[in-house]
């Protein structure tokens, strides 16, 4: 049983840590709400864009498009989305693990480059041969300082350009998909080449009625980069919401652990205190007995 002063000091330090973790939890909860709002804001745009695209491309073959060119894969770009800050459980680690797993198992013979969005994954890859320096691509480095569509679009544009000029034959995005505040799932999505368009259920195409200005083909070439940018933006927003969710959960657990630790220490403190009192009484009684006897 440690001495009283020691235990007291530990209790104080744990309570102050608890204050920090619970404050961080609150902050994350507030940021999570904002991040979720951003996702909700984007949804009507993405729905409408999808709708217009299906309206236009109902009869059109996409395989002609430069972004749909599926060729032999020699060079791969992996865009790994993490966060700038830690203290969010396995959030960043899971991304790093998935990237390493992909490099080892899926692309052992391929030339792989990793573009990290967010400091944490960049820290993991900046000294490896896979690294693409994010500070050379506008928007990638400061993505989370001020999250906006424009920044995400810059990164997506870089990926699109390097796909078209054949620097990379495939572009993958790895991020934490937001399930709910406590659950994130690491997702690997193929950004380029565009996978064959899935027909999602029965989309009513009122195709014939529309006037297309200037022409169907040109609208398609204009829309496809937009959908790609949007898809990437969606991943970034999802990752952002997941980050705050993960941090909230991690901080909640930390606060719980701290309070149970605090409880145990208080018990120990009280026991030690009582033992000290008992000892003192024994000494006094012993002294009194000795005096009486003399």
């Amino acid at each position: 049983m440690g001495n009283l002063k020691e235990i007291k000091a530990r209790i104080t330090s744990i309570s102050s840590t608890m204050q920090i973790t619970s404050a961080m939890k609150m902050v994350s909860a507030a940021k999570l709400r904002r991040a979720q709002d951003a996702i909700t804001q984007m949804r009507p745009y993405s729905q409408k864009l999808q709708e217009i695209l299906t309206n236009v491309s109902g009869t059109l073959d996409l395989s002609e498009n430069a972004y749909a060119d599926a060729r032999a894969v020699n060079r791969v770009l992996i865009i790994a989305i993490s966060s700038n800050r830690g203290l969010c459980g396995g959030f960043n680690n899971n991304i790093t693990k998935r990237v390493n797993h992909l490099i080892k198992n899926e692309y052992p013979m391929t030339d792989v480059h990793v573009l990290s969005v967010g400091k944490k994954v960049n820290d993991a890859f900046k000294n490896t041969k896979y690294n693409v320096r994010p500070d050379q691509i506008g928007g990638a480095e400061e993505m989370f300082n001020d999250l906006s569509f424009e920044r995400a679009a810059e990164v997506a544009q870089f990926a699109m350009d390097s796909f078209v000029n054949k620097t990379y034959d495939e572009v993958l995005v790895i991020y934490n998909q937001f399930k709910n505040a406590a659950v994130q799932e690491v997702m690997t999505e193929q950004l380029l080449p565009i996978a064959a368009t899935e027909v999602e259920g029965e989309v009513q195409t009122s195709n014939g009625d529309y006037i297309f200005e200037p022409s169907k083909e040109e609208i398609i070439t204009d829309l496809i980069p937009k959908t790609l940018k949007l898809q990437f933006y969606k991943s970034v927003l999802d990752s952002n919401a997941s980050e705050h969710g993960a941090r909230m959960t991690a901080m909640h657990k930390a606060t719980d652990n701290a309070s149970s630790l605090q409880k145990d220490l208080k018990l120990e403190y009280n026991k030690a205190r009582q033992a000290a009192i008992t000892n003192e009484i024994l000494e006094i009684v012993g002294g009194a007995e000795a005096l009486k006897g003399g």
Partner: protein
Amino acid sequence: MRLEIITPDKKLFEGEVDAVSFPGIDGSFQVLKGHAPIISTLKEGRIKVSLSNDEKEIDMLSGEIENDPSNDRIIRLSIKGGVVEMQNDKIIVLAD
């Protein structure tokens, strides 16, 4: 007819309008009530909106909207590009 202008980040404008001019990729054009369904890409420029008279107040959802000094029923919005779809007197602009 109803006009909605949205970007991935936010909604720029929503309201009842009489006429809208767009900076189309092949030149500017205007749509009025009853226009045939159209999908068009837009280039950088300004969308000019004539507000409908029964639209009492509009939400200035973004600072990018400017009022016309001579006519308070006309507003202008700068966009960098986008797509417009009109169908059944409902116009939706996806701006960049």
